[in-house]
């Protein structure tokens, strides 16, 4: 079973606190992999400028690292900081990890005249280029993200073991947002690309559960012709892509995500203030309707976090915290491990209609019900 833990705080914290939540929640076999998302990065030995793109991945051989350098240099990236994990290799199952990459680059000078959109496209295409290069060389190069202020670590094994192997408890790297997902993979083989969280252009999600509508959703997204809609080693990758599609491609507010993946019924829409628009939206995005059970935790540019439930509400999710720091986990003990001292009256368990948004100021939870009007300026 997959377990999720997320913490967001105004002050950067160690990812190890989130890994300890994974350990608190551990039950049964969880060793198919651990994925971490770190957003709002701080390094102990480097003063990081949050605008510089960060590359996360694994070079499995020296040749792969060499090729990676070639690709980045060819694009005009300049290496500013290379975070060396002091990894204890004996604690990592896989033997073919030459170097874990967490590198800060200076954006190519040629991009200074580019629009923001163009830069985002270039970053995406660079990441895909690296991924494809790895795939054509016997999967010797794995890339998780290339984006400003976002780092990702993924490895196969038990969460706590991996945390210790990477010496994440030594606080050399901290972040204001940390996602962790430990999993027993459901559909496909154990594969680094199947590890949550999934990342695309600043949008990131992790999920527990199984999305049985995966194949039709994947077929539809693949047909959109958007280069980033690829991969799909896990049925949960589509959650990230749907969130990306809704917010970036369609330009709809975050609340619309829930309406796309778990639309309301006809009877519910009939009394919804935006029922007419949403009925049409349900039809045009029909292929993106998920079939959970799933709980989705997402992170968006600007350090907004969100939690959304599937319509069946068969996956647990608990959110709690204090102004300035919030945690969400698939079990109460996970929240307790991350924020033990908190006002439990503020704890919230989202139901099937809820989207919980934690804005960048992190002062309070925005609990939005799907039955309520959402901020859509024009169409509604």
């Amino acid at each position, binding site marked *: 079973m997959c377990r999720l833990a997320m913490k967001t705080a105004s002050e950067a914290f160690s990812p190890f606190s989130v890994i300890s939540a994974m350990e608190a929640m551990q039950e049964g076999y969880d060793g198919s992999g651990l994925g971490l998302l770190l957003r709002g990065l701080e390094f102990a030995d480097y003063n990081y400028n949050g605008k510089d793109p960060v590359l996360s991945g694994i070079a499995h051989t020296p040749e792969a690292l060499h090729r990676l350098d070639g690709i980045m240099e060819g694009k005009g990236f300049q290496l500013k900081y290379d975070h060396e994990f002091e990894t204890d290799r004996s604690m990592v199952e896989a033997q073919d990890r030459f170097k874990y990459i967490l590198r800060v680059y200076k954006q190519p000078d040629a991009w200074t005249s580019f629009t923001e959109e163009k830069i985002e496209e270039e970053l995406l295409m660079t990441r895909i280029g690296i991924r494809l290069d790895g795939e054509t060389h016997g999967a010797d190069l794995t890339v998780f993200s290339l984006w400003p202020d976002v780092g990702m670590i993924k490895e196969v094994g038990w969460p706590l073991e991996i945390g210790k192997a990477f010496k994440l408890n030594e606080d050399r790297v901290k972040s204001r947002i940390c996602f962790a997902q430990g999993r027993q993979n459901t559909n496909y083989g154990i594969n680094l690309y199947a590890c949550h969280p999934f990342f695309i252009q600043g949008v990131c999600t992790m999920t527990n559960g199984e999305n049985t509508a995966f194949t039709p959703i994947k077929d539809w997204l693949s047909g959109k012709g958007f280069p980033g809609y690829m991969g799909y080693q896990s049925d949960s990758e589509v959650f990230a892509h749907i969130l990306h599609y809704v917010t970036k491609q369609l330009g709809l507010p975050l609340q619309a995500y829930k309406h796309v993946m778990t639309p309301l019924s006809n009877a519910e829409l009939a009394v919804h203030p935006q029922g007419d*628009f949403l009925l049409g939206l349900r039809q045009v995005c029909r292929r993106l309707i998920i079939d959970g059970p799933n709980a989705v935790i997402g992170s968006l540019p600007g350090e907004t976090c969100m939690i959304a439930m599937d319509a069946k509400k*068969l996956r647990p999710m608990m959110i709690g915290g204090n102004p300035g720091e919030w945690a969400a986990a698939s079990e109460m003990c996970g929240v307790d491990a991350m924020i033990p001292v908190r006002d439990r009256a503020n704890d919230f368990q989202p139901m099937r209609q809820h989207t919980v948004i934690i804005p960048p100021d992190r002062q309070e939870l925005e609990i939005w019900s799907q039955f309520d009007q959402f901020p859509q300026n024009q169409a509604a």
Partner: protein
Amino acid sequence: MVSIRSIPSEPSSLSPNDLPWRIVHDENRCTLCGKCAAVCPVNTLKLSYMRKRMPRMVLNSSERGSNFKTFVGIRQSTDVGRRCVGCGTCSMVCPNEAIAPVHNSTDRYKFQATAGGDAAKRGGRRNDASSSLLDRIIFNRISMLTDPALDAGRHEFTYNTILGRVLPPEEYIKRKLSGEWIPPTREIFPFIIGSMSFGALSPNMWLGLLQGVAYCNEVLGIPVVMATGEGGCPPWVLKSPFLKYIILQVASGYFGWDEIIRAIPDMQCEPAAIEIKYGQGAKPGDGGLLMWFKVSKLIARLRGVPEGIDLPSPPVHQTLYSIEESVMKMIQSMSMAWNFKVPVYPKISGSTSAKAVLNNLVRNPYASALLIDGIDGGTGAAYDISLNATGHPIATNVRDCYLDLCKQGKQNEIPIFAAGGVGKNGNVVQNALALIMLGASGVHMGKFIMQSAAGCLGSEQNRCNVCNVGICPKGITSQNPKIYRRLDPDKVAERVVETFQAIQVEVKKVMAPLGRSQSLPIGMSDALGIADKDAADRLNIQYVC
């Protein structure tokens, strides 16, 4: 040369054993009531007196050695035109179970079924008794790991489908903001009663279907729609609120469209959709055919023709030059007639060229769907060769078209509907969900609903199949009041409702273990398996054994 007449053998002479159905009669049980002979739709039965010798051992030479007994037996006509069709109405009316037709696999009649130089024809279905490919597809992606199995009985399921053109999301939002036209869509139950015309079906059958459909919609909340086929609709229906459950068909004979066009100003609601028929699976290359037997006064009035004449529609829409032009002009004209508020879609025969038609529709902003009718489709009247050997199986046709749409990312924009053999062996939900998971948005079923709702006797062994000549023993496809009075519309309606309720239950029983409840699993091909490697490869689904 003078033929020997003592042996009655001519080139076309047949014995009862050469016929597809033999009548077995037990004179010991026969009450001589004569009901069987009276009811036989093809007049094949004759009760006749027969004599047989009763040998007796006689020692006294003054007496004769044998007696003769006279009894009443059954004679079965060996005339091809009056051969037993196996409908079994005789056994249904027999008070003593003394008579029944028995299928005869060594039938030779078909070699003689060309009297007058015309090839054999019939109504009904393709004669292919082998198991259908769709019956062999199973649903094997059972959610056992993280997804607790859903409760088919108590969980809430959503499985309606969309009939109509669906815009790409970007375009929808743009048009919604600027108040532009958004193509009409209908949310319907994915099992549609396929096009059967008011002339092909008896008034009682048609009325029963409509009553059942209305009940499903208005009482049970199952949005079932039915298609009319060519030949229009009674004016009272056109002007009734039930029109919204009806897909009106326009075909190459344009029969019934005078009445429809005249009724437009008085319509209380819009029809569910307009179906433009370019072809049908049972008889590709033929237009509709209503034989003179069935052109009654009412039908003649509806179609605007004299009574008692054959009504063959041309094979193509004569006014148009090509399918591209035809599709464009007719779809636009029909859309315009209802102010662009009614989905308009073409129906074509299953064909290797279906993809070309589909691609044409993708580029036509007014095209609402594509209905493909496979070779196993039924009909009221067609030549045997058309029914049996002309056309394309539906499964690969739907799959190819769906995958083609996927490549273009347009699978949500033009729904594909599948027809032709859905439920031909009674497994309607299995067949339909297989087609849906291969990529169809829904299915049309004709023969199945006739069998389920009205007890149609037809089978793949060429049973009955006399829909073409208006003598349907159940009163389903006859225009003769003496025959169709047998069918009680209320009872048909009841069966329609029961059928759809049972379909609903079965749909849930498939969706629940697959972990699907939020939407109809269109294109969920990862859930399909078949124990046939070639078929699995061809359909791009899993080979399982």
